[in-house]
């Protein structure tokens, strides 16, 4: 078993809990950096795609997981980021500037949606964001002069200065660096006052007001931050897809993002990453196990959708804390190995809940 012995308060909120944490994360990063020497360029492309989806899912996690506002329209912010990026690159902006501006434009789009959307909550908010996504999809389809319309438009090659990023290896590293940057920045923000106020707004608005949190402003900031990160993922996705069409940013992508957040485990960045990994690798996984399944199953249309739905239902019923919850249980099993009690994480029914003054 492990007991924390802190001599300074700053150890309580350090980035890494202890040395074994530090070593494990360093090991993970080394492995990620070594992958290009071991894997084929197809696998590298797939992994870059996974990283991009992880960034998008991190963006949505800020909104759903930390602030408790459900958005069913985050594909719209991916699209805004992607199209803004490509449009600015075509205008001759350097890639990094354009990418950051695209994230900024997406964040502004998030603020614009957030300002009216915070007046509603729960199911109604989900409807508003979904409607926004549908509107954006139509706008992209019809605004041909900027977006290339329904026929789409090609994406310029990724290039920073003279350094080309179009090869699978360099693009993989670029996505990895951005993912690490996004994770560290979000982790820093979310364990500071801003993240705490997100959590406060999620758990009790009445108490948040009483403690001086400007609830509406915090909600709008969450929308902006979330949309900005998702937009950054969109800009990266453009380079992965190499050709943008509006149907790449349909409702299905929004739902996949929500699935990542829910299956990963609401309220944790690790969950967003794990969920992103699972959902983005699932189609590949399904096609790999198909040969072993009876013909009648694998030939069935909608088989993949069925698996997606099945996994979601499974998690909602049996593991509401998601993959992250599973992970924490596993860690606590290892840490307290011979003394692990089966009921440590048993879910109890609660009989006390107040819903007043919300």
């Amino acid at each position, binding site marked *: 078993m492990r007991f924390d012995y802190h001599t300074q308060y700053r150890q309580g909120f350090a980035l890494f809990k202890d040395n074994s944490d530090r070593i494990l994360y360093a090991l993970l990063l080394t492995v990620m950096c070594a992958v290009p020497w071991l894997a084929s360029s197809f696998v590298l492309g797939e992994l870059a795609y996974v990283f991009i989806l992880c960034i998008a899912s991190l963006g949505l996690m800020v909104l759903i997981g930390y602030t408790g506002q459900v958005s069913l329209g985050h594909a719209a912010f991916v699209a805004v980021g992607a199209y803004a990026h490509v449009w600015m690159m075509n205008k001759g902006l350097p890639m990094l500037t354009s990418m950051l501006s695209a994230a900024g434009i997406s964040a502004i789009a998030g603020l614009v949606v957030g300002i009216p959307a915070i007046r509603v909550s729960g199911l109604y908010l989900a409807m508003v964001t979904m409607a926004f996504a549908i509107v954006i999809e139509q706008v992209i389809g019809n605004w041909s002069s900027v977006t290339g319309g329904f026929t789409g438009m090609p994406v310029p090659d990724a290039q920073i200065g003279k350094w080309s990023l179009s090869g699978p290896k360099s693009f993989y590293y670029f996505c990895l660096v951005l993912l690490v940057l996004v994770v560290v920045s979000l982790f820093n923000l979310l364990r*500071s006052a801003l993240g705490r106020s997100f959590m406060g707004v999620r758990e009790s608005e009445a108490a948040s007001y009483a403690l001086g949190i400007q609830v509406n402003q915090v909600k709008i900031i969450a929308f902006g931050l979330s949309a900005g990160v998702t937009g950054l993922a969109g800009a990266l996705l453009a380079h992965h897809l190499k050709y943008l069409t509006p149907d790449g940013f349909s409702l299905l992508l929004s739902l996949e993002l929500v699935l990542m957040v829910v299956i990963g485990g609401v309220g944790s960045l690790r969950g967003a990453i794990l969920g992103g990994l699972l959902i983005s690798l699932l189609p590949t996984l399904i096609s790999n196990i198909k040969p072993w399944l009876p013909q009648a199953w694998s030939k069935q249309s909608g088989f993949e959708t069925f698996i997606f739905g099945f996994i979601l239902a499974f998690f909602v019923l049996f593991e509401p804390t998601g993959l992250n919850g599973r992970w924490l249980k596993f860690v606590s099993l290892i840490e307290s190995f011979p003394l692990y009690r089966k009921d440590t994480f048993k879910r109890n029914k609660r009989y006390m809940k107040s819903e007043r003054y919300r």
Partner: protein
Amino acid sequence: MSHNASPPLLDIQHLSLSFGGIQAISDFDLKVHKSEILALIGPNGAGKTSVLNTITRVFTPQSGEIIFKERDISHLPRHAIASLGIARTFQNIELFESATVLDNLLLGRHRFFNGHWWQQLLRTPHFIQTEEDTREQIEHIIDFLDLSPWRHSPISGLPYGVRKIVELARALCAKPELLFLDEPASGLNTEETRDLAFWIDDIRTDLGITVVMVEHDMSLVSAVADRVVCMSQGKILASGTPQEVQSNTDVIAAYLGTSS
């Protein structure tokens, strides 16, 4: 006690609040003086919590003035109340349930400077020092209310009595001058209520905080309150020392009904 020398800390004048046809508070006057413990009692539906909610800007009064430190606060935005130095607890505990005790208390310090956004993003050394100072302030409150065994436990796993105290601790972390407690003893057992009585007294004498509490438990009220105000149907029925109010015939009638 005479308070004529200094103006009252909180001065409520002609406060009225109605919800449609229901007059929750009508022409209500109340003065709260510095460093006193005032208990607001009354039968259910008397408007005690409504008074509290009106002062903390959950409700906007139809008329009247709420003057805190010689400033009318009756139309301030709801989030601005905390920074004036007014904190409160809730009748039905409003804690941040899935967070730990420590996170709840950290949020209690939200009204103070917690670093600019870029400092939070980059975690500059200065920012880490700010966070440590915040933590130190919180540790004082944790010591004060004996919460150290629960420091890292999530609220959702805590017993009811501890949650009540955590909510009190969170309000104290905001370093208020005026503290409102909405039924602090409801759901506590006798022993916990007795501890609470000592704490409330310490909050006044050691921390110098003025306390206004809405409470039904007369043992707590008579143990700590300097002054008791009894409300009924949105109006003040009686006020005075706990003994005076308890023996007032109007008060007894309001609670038990009259025989005629």
